[in-house]
């Protein structure tokens, strides 16, 4: 899994975990949002980076009280024709003033990258087969080529 951010490819310094106790020092943990909510009472390493994974059906109301504890929110795109993730990102930014990182994971392809960025998504996680078909140059070009949406400029 690679991360595309600011038009560049990198290895994400975060890992997906199903369990809060599997934290590794120096590596950010991306927890399913339910696991995060279930473990709120546990004492945590205050230095640790905390991220959660939400899908397009997640009720944002549940996580609003904890937004300032989160360094990263990963939105799962179940299908590339399902644009709910774009609205969720804009809600996080515009409605909830969330200032941490937002990534997209799942079914997004290069031509949707500029839409994601314009909606407030910082990075997109991509797998190897997709990268082979659509190398980083395609994502960068999509970003450069896409006419900017005027009001968000």
């Amino acid at each position: 899994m690679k991360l595309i951010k600011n038009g560049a490819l990198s290895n994400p310094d975060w890992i997906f975990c199903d369990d809060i106790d599997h934290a590794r020092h120096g590596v950010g943990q991306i927890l399913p949002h339910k696991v995060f909510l279930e473990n709120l009472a546990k004492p945590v390493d205050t230095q640790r980076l905390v991220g959660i994974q939400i899908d397009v059906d997640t009720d944002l109301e549940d996580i609003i009280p904890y937004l300032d504890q989160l360094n990263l929110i990963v939105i799962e795109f179940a299908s590339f024709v399902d644009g709910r993730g774009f609205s969720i990102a804009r809600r996080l930014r515009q409605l909830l003033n969330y200032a941490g990182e937002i990534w997209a994971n799942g079914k997004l392809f290069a031509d949707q990258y500029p839409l994601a960025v314009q909606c407030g998504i910082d990075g997109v996680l991509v797998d190897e087969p997709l990268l082979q078909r659509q190398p980083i140059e395609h994502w960068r070009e999509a970003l450069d080529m896409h006419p900017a949406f005027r009001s968000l400029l």
Partner: protein
Amino acid sequence: MYSYDTSDRQLVHNRAKQFRGQVARRISGALNEDEFRPLRLMNGLYLEMHAYMLRIAIPYGGLCAKQMHMLGDIADKYDRGYGHFTTRQNIQFNWLELDRVPELLVDLAKVNMHAIQSSGNCIRNVTADPYAGATADEIADPLPTAELIRQWSSLHPEFAFLPRKFKIAVTGANNDRAAIRVHDIGIQLVEDEAGSPGYKIFVGGGLGRTPMVGVVLCPFLPQDQLLAYLEAILRVYNLYGRRDNKYKARIKILTHELGIDNLRDQIEAEFQSTKDTAPATGPWLSRVKGNFQAPSFEKLPSGSKELDTLTANNSAFSRWVETNVRDHKVPGYAIANVSLKPIGGIAGDVTGEQMHKLAKLADRFSLSEIRVTKNQSLVLPHVKQSDLEYLWHALQLDGLGEANSGLISDVASCPGMDYCSLATARSIPISQQISRRFADPELQQKIGPVAIKISGCINACGHHHIGQIGILGLEKNGEEYYQIVLGGDDGEAAAIGKVSGHGFSKDDIVDAVERVIDTFLKLRTSGELFADAYRRIGIGPFKEALYETD
């Protein structure tokens, strides 16, 4: 008319370049067919029965002469010498080769045109009253608002992958010529008691297989809140519209399932929380208005004695004036409807040569402006009354002078099975037969205004639900048959027509339409219009006439 500024131009040029890259990546395999499909649709490109079809956006149906010339060039250069104006004020070219489409888009961009969002599950091309800015019955010109919506919705990153397509129509008049009540969102310019400008917002109208008339979502929205409110509507729809069944995915179904009060509460909550950070309407609308050039009307006396004499002496011209010409808000001017429905012709089809001639006529007689109507005809909105006779002669020479606007031979029709891969029956031959059957000008005048609309499948692109006589083409055991729908209306008294009963074969459908008309002529009171007679007597007598031999 609106003049493109630098950023408008940059956007359409970039878009053309971007699509060229997307086509190249589809050919190389970098984009698979599933990924490419929404991209080509958002550029208006369909794969139809025989070839690729490109639907070019004509925002609010407005064209200048130069743009019409370019459409004429495109018809000859890329197509088979003609184009087809649609029920959504756009134009379609039906015989294209995929690899030439990027070049076509570059040509279009040269005259500030594009095919952005003329298809796909996104906010489609915005439509408006074709008499906008010319008619006396509007409180203000709706086109700056329509242009604002075009700009806001074009490439909006949040709303490119909605549950389903989304259509917005705008009018500035009480007399609704934009069918705002059968759009996902309908917008009417209104004023509050203090005279401040605002909008009445309708939601949840639509045709297709579940036709519905829209309901009032907001009776008065202050003008400067429009974009924030539209964003709230679209966001609620994007998040909560159904995605499990494409036939239940339009906002009309969400409106119906949630109930208008519940939907309004959700939109209001979203609006209240985001209105301060949403795109600001006021400055944007001012900028748009600044780029609209007002038509330079001459100061003319009201009425034209010359015109009165000419109409008195020439019955054919007089009939055209009576049928196709409407009052203009400026003294001495008129609104001229140009019918694209010659008797026996194909509704909305225009040759490249005709397009060039229309462009020249618009340049000479209508301050260079042309409008496309939802009834697949054209309007020259600003014609001096003293020029009408010359214009009529010129239109006659080009096969564009049919005096039938709004009459029975002015049939609206989708392309049907002659072109469309979704269609279940042909529409064009039926519309041609009806037009021939009622060709007699005296008979047409006697019948008066009646809107016949034909769709070749349940998707209803021919708007049959809102025809006073609607015809729906279906298929059973390999045979085409046609249902009749009566009593539809697309205006301020919007109504969905009722199915009369079982369908008719392609050989019987025109006789059936004639029986409907005969019944009307028999039962009407003196001078009564078809729509009024239907409202008075209901569907009963028509059913009796249609099925009396059963």
